[in-house]
C-alpha cells in the first residue's frame, strides 16, 4: 500500500458467446448508439458484449438482465442472431478512470509508477502504452506521447478526452 489516491473505480464487464454460426462473419460490428458489439471467434461462436455494469464492484457475477439488455439491440441490428443459442456468459472487472482515459507515469512516490484506467477496450492502446512506459522507466523521463496522461492532470484540472485509447463514448 503506497497510499496513492487514484481516480479509479472498478466495474464488472459482461460478455457472452453463442453456439457455432456456420457461416463466416468477418467484421467486428460495434454500435455506440445501441451500446453493443459483436464479432465471430475463430471457433465460429458469436461473441457479444455491451458496456460496463453500472455498479462499482469486484464481483464476477453474470446476470440474465445483461443478456436481455444486450440481445435486444443485437437481434435488431443483425436478425440472424435470433436463431443462435447462448453457450456461455462471463464477467471480468475493469479499472475505469474518472475521464475514461488511461493514467500513466509517476505517482509522487519514489520508484512507484502506474499505468491504469485502461477501461473496457484497452487492448487497442496498451501495446503503445507499454512501450512508452518502458521508455519512461529506462530513460527516467516521460515520453512526449504519454505526458498528457500523467496522474497530476487531475490536480492541474486538465482532464482528457481520449476515445482513441478507450473506445468509449462520452
Amino acid at each position, binding site marked *: 500500500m503506497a497510499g496513492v*489516491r*487514484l481516480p479509479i473505480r472498478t466495474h464488472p464487464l459482461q460478455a457472452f458467446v453463442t453456439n457455432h454460426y456456420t457461416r463466416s462473419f468477418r467484421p467486428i460490428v460495434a454500435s455506440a448508439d445501441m451500446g453493443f458489439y459483436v464479432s465471430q471467434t475463430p471457433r465460429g461462436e458469436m461473441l457479444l458484449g455491451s458496456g460496463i*455494469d453500472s455498479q*462499482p*464492484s469486484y464481483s464476477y*457475477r453474470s*446476470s*440474465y438482465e445483461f443478456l436481455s439488455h444486450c440481445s435486444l439491440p443485437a437481434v435488431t441490428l443483425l436478425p440472424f442472431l435470433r436463431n443462435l443459442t447462448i453457450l456461455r456468459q462471463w464477467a471480468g472487472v475493469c479499472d475505469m478512470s474518472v475521464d475514461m482515459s488511461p493514467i500513466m507515469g509517476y505517482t509522487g512516490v519514489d520508484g512507484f509508477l502506474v499505468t491504469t484506467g485502461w477501461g473496457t477496450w484497452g487492448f487497442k492502446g496498451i501495446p503503445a502504452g507499454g512501450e512508452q512506459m518502458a521508455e519512461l522507466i529506462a530513460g527516467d523521463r516521460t515520453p512526449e506521447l504519454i505526458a498528457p496522461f500523467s496522474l497530476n492532470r*487531475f490536480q492541474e484540472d486538465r482532464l482528457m478526452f481520449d476515445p482513441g485509447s478507450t473506445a468509449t463514448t462520452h
Partner: protein
Amino acid sequence: MVLRLACPHCGPRPVEEWMYGEVPDPPDYLTEADERDVDRGFMMSNTEGAKQERWFHAGGCRRWQTIERDTTL
C-alpha cells in the same frame, strides 16, 4: 443472478432500477484545502469489501437511500 439492493421502501430491487452516487471520502492525512478539493472531485477509495453507499432509487420510490453493500459479492 443480478445484484439486488434492499430498498427500505420497496424491498430488494434489481440494480438496473438504481443510480449510484459516489460519496467523496478524502482521507484524514490530506490536510491542505486544495489537496482535499482535488480528492473530493476526482479520487475514489474503490473499496473492496463492505461499505456504506448512496443510491438513488430512480425506478422505484425515487428517494436517496444509504445502503451497505459488499463490493466483492
